[in-house]
């Protein structure tokens, strides 16, 4: 055996036993997953849970542990992301707080729905369909919209864009002024958005930025520059809440796994954030739309394609 072979054997043999997941996995693979998802999260301002959860399950982490642990990891990734956006003044704390109110309420309701679905034994199917439908529709809308925007930019260079469109939501009561976002709108709208995203994120085990970010852009009409920082700010609290809830109810948060993913994730997110700052917003949105569509397509394929194993073994009383 030559030296290079020995080094690569040592490197790829670095197994670590994860105490909660109860499996031994390669630390290099885990760091790579954390780094890759972190890169995307920095680039698009999404937590990346919709990528992280399927990847972790794929390499052998029990689904329940994957979902809960990535919540904890997203907290760390979001903190470093928010601090970076904050230093550039791109966080609307007031808007984040209002969204958060709805988010905490929604995620509590979502956890209830989750346990109800679990009782009916079709939770996996519901999660998969929820992923395909939400990711598929959001990805399509974003792709179409950003392609249109790119065309328009090319047609009339430098023309001032309208801040946001006025719609039915302007007529609702409890109007609030959001200085940073340059909005004067009803608080009902962001609370409702937070609530719906909260439900979805609890059921799907994701932070929900891929739902939140488009909703903030298209429904609230917030400036794109503020959206990512504000969404990250909101996600920190929702995911911290989910982490504690999962620790108390299911004991499925793997601290060691979260630390390794975080280590890879924060490094990836920093580079992602820097690249993201250089790319034009429309191109960034198109790129994110493509990533979302690819994940949705993959999950759809798993739903309809003949599974390699037609049976699944579930240990009762333990984790699935």
């Amino acid at each position: 055996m030559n030296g290079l072979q020995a080094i690569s054997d040592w490197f790829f043999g670095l197994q670590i036993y994860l105490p909660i997941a109860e499996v031994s996995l390669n630390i290099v693979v885990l760091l790579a997953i954390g780094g890759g998802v972190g890169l995307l999260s920095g680039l698009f301002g999404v937590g990346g849970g919709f990528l992280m959860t399927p990847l972790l399950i794929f390499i052998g982490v029990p689904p329940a542990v994957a979902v809960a642990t990535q919540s904890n990891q997203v907290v760390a990734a979001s903190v470093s992301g928010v601090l970076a956006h904050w230093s550039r003044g791109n966080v609307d704390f007031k808007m984040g707080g209002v969204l958060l109110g709805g988010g905490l309420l929604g995620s509590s309701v979502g956890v209830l729905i989750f346990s109800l679905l679990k009782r009916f034994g079709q939770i996996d199917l519901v999660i998969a369909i929820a992923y395909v439908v939400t990711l598929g529709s959001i990805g399509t809308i974003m792709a179409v919209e950003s392609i249109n925007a790119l065309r328009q930019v090319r047609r009339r260079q430098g023309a001032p864009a309208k801040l946001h469109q006025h719609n039915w939501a302007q007529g609702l009561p409890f109007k609030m002024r959001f200085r940073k976002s340059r909005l004067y709108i009803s608080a009902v709208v962001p609370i409702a958005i937070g609530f719906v995203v909260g439900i979805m994120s609890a059921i799907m085990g994701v932070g929900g930025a891929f739902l939140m970010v488009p909703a903030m852009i298209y429904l609230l009409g917030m400036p794109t520059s503020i959206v990512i920082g504000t969404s990250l700010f909101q996600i920190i609290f929702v995911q911290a809440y989910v982490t504690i809830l999962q620790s108390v109810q299911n004991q499925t948060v793997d601290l060691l796994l979260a630390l390794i993913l975080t280590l890879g994730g924060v490094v990836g997110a920093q580079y992602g954030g820097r690249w993201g700052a250089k790319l034009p917003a429309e191109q960034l949105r198109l790129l994110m739309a493509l990533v979302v569509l690819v994940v949705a397509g993959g999950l759809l394929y798993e739903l309809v394609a003949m599974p390699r194993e037609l049976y699944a073994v579930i240990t009762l009383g333990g984790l699935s």
Partner: protein
Amino acid sequence: MRRFAAAMLILALLVPGTARAKDIVADLVVHRIEITSGFSGAELTLFGAVNEKGDAVAVVRGPTAPGGGLVGGTVEVRQKTRTLGIWMTGAHVRFENVPGFYAIAASRPLEEILTFDMLDRYQLGINELKLPAVSASAPNISDYSAALLRIRQRLGLYTAKVGHISFIGDRLFRTSFAFPSTVPTGIYNVDVYLVRDGKIVDAQSFPLLVNRAGFSADIYNFAHRNGAAYGVIAVLTALLFGWIAHLAFRRR
């Protein structure tokens, strides 16, 4: 090998002290598998001696009690069925007393040394494992038990291949069993049989303990005993790491 022979000698000296001399004696080199942070599976050596020439069979069975780890006890096997083009969970069968681990070794192929009847009675060989179905929503239970064996084999928890027990001379024997990193924790049972002329003439049984130890055990126990504090610590650690990362990358 010299140490092995010495251990055998001590054993041989000790055995006559008991009321009746056993025809087969065996032991594991270690009686405990400790799952630590560096754990990536284990290999256990079993050694033993017989008083006269014969065949040896050794079986390791994992814990069947629920809560002995992620596997073991009652398991539900679910079948996916296609409905409206989508694969969804359909019928299921529940099995009880399912061992979390099963491995077997013998000095000769099992069917050469024991009759099918005997293999069945002692549950020797993966296909002789008795998996009693407690509830079923499908008639073809054997398909489900076959799937259970197949999936557990793929995880390395069950081994269909009969390991080899090698004899050193006529008296001393040894073999080894491999445990994957996903082994359930709990008390395992090791059975050793002496076979002559198609009959089991003597047997010995002893436990093997698989438990978490060190850092990984501390984390596991803390998470299960004090979930709220664990969750808060997890969040605080994440906040700290996010902040450190921000500081580390701020100006570059």
